[in-house]
């Protein structure tokens, strides 16, 4: 392995800091670059880079933190960046899409049903979907505690370009899933809803 010159090191260190998910120490950078590279050499090149960023008015600065070096945007650009994040269409998270799928296909459902099928708490995701009007309260279940039932609203149809819920692709047709598994899950979700309600009732009683 040949040793790297300063120009190459600058390019490489920039690439490493750019792709790093968090602050990186000189020692880590050196280890990734060359087995014989002293961390002090890396620190020196990092200083050069930091100076270059200041002088050429780059869109970011090189900052030294307790945990290592990190590239960060300039504070005076914060407003623009916030505006971009707002103008950029937000992608529905995977969790949101899963929750929405359950509600769309099984409506009306309780939170307990959704939590059960996803295997995790859906509180935060439900709030997002309710805020976005993709999901709405449609009633209460006739069970102890009268849990709220959720369904989809008109915005849901609009969002997916459907005229009615009848246009949702039907699940049994969905050939990727073995039919026995599908049936099992069908009955599972019903049973679970009841078991949950049961338990809720008891714990309150």
């Amino acid at each position, binding site marked *: 392995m040949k040793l790297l010159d300063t120009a190459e090191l600058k390019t490489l260190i920039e690439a490493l800091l*750019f*792709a*790093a*998910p968090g602050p990186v120490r000189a020692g880590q950078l050196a280890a990734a670059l060359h087995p014989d590279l002293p961390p002090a050499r890396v620190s020196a090149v990092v200083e050069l880079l930091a100076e270059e960023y200041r002088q050429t008015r780059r869109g970011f600065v090189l900052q030294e933190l307790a945990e290592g070096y990190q590239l960060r945007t300039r504070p005076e650009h914060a407003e623009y960046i916030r505006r971009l*994040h*707002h*103008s*950029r*269409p*937000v*992608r*529905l*998270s*995977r969790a*949101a*899409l*899963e929750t*929405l*799928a*359950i509600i*769309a*296909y099984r409506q009306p459902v309780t939170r307990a049903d959704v939590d*059960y*099928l*996803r*295997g995790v708490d859906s509180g*935060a*995701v439900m709030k*997002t979907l309710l*805020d*976005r009007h993709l999901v709405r309260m449609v009633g209460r279940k006739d069970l102890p505690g009268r849990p709220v039932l959720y369904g989809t609203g008109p915005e849901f149809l609009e*969002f*997916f*370009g*459907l005229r009615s819920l009848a246009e*949702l*692709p039907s*699940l049994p047709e*969905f050939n*990727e*899933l073995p039919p*026995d*598994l*599908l049936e*099992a*899950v069908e*009955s*599972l979700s019903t*049973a*679970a809803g009841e*078991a949950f309600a049961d*338990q809720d009732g008891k714990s309150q009683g």
Partner: protein
Amino acid sequence: MAYHIDLENFKGPLDLLLHLIKQHEMDIYDIPIAEITAQYLAALDTMKSLNLEIAGEFLVMASTLLHIKSRLLLPSREAADNDEEEVDPREELVHRLLEYQKYKEAAQSLERLPLLGRDVFVRQIADEAMAGNDDGELQPVPLFELVEALRRLLQEPPPPPVHEVARERLSVAERARQVLELLSRRPQLPFLDVVGLGCDRELLIVTFLAVLELAKLGLVRILQGQHHAAIWLHAVEQRPAAAAIPVDEAFGYC
């Protein structure tokens, strides 16, 4: 005759045929069908002698080749009698091979592109930070992604929660016996088939516990090919296995 073919490298019968055609420098547009059939069957024999499981697709291709061979042996008079232009029985096979070769090459050129996460990297920014509580406009989602989300969910049974104690309709011992019975019919079962087909939450947990107990008793082995791959239950030969299962009290589940 020695066949130095690493058969496990072949992704299917078309792949194997292409390899044989290249290896023996045959003309793909004028395949000597008797020869290729012999080579192909010899390759299958090699697989058998190595105790490799031959996928059904390989056998279907073998019969296709034999069928073509027999049709080529028929006197061409018969076709002429039908007053029709004779179609070369190899035609479909040649088309399939050419098509397959094309996509095989396409796959190779795709692999040479700079792949995200392998050759090039982007900044890693926590997307969820803004996806959740932002009030920006929502990006459109194709309807089928909604179906896919559900498919993903349904393919994974919900993990058994640790905080809830199952009220037992079915005992762990009873379920363990059922699992063993399933395994007596087939020496190995995908773990998900055993657990995922449970019809309610309790059964799911009871099954889960039963499988763990069986493993602890050394009556089944839980194996996985590689990280994240499907988990398999293997029967351990030890009869009568069911007798080794204690009652629930002994398990401590009451």
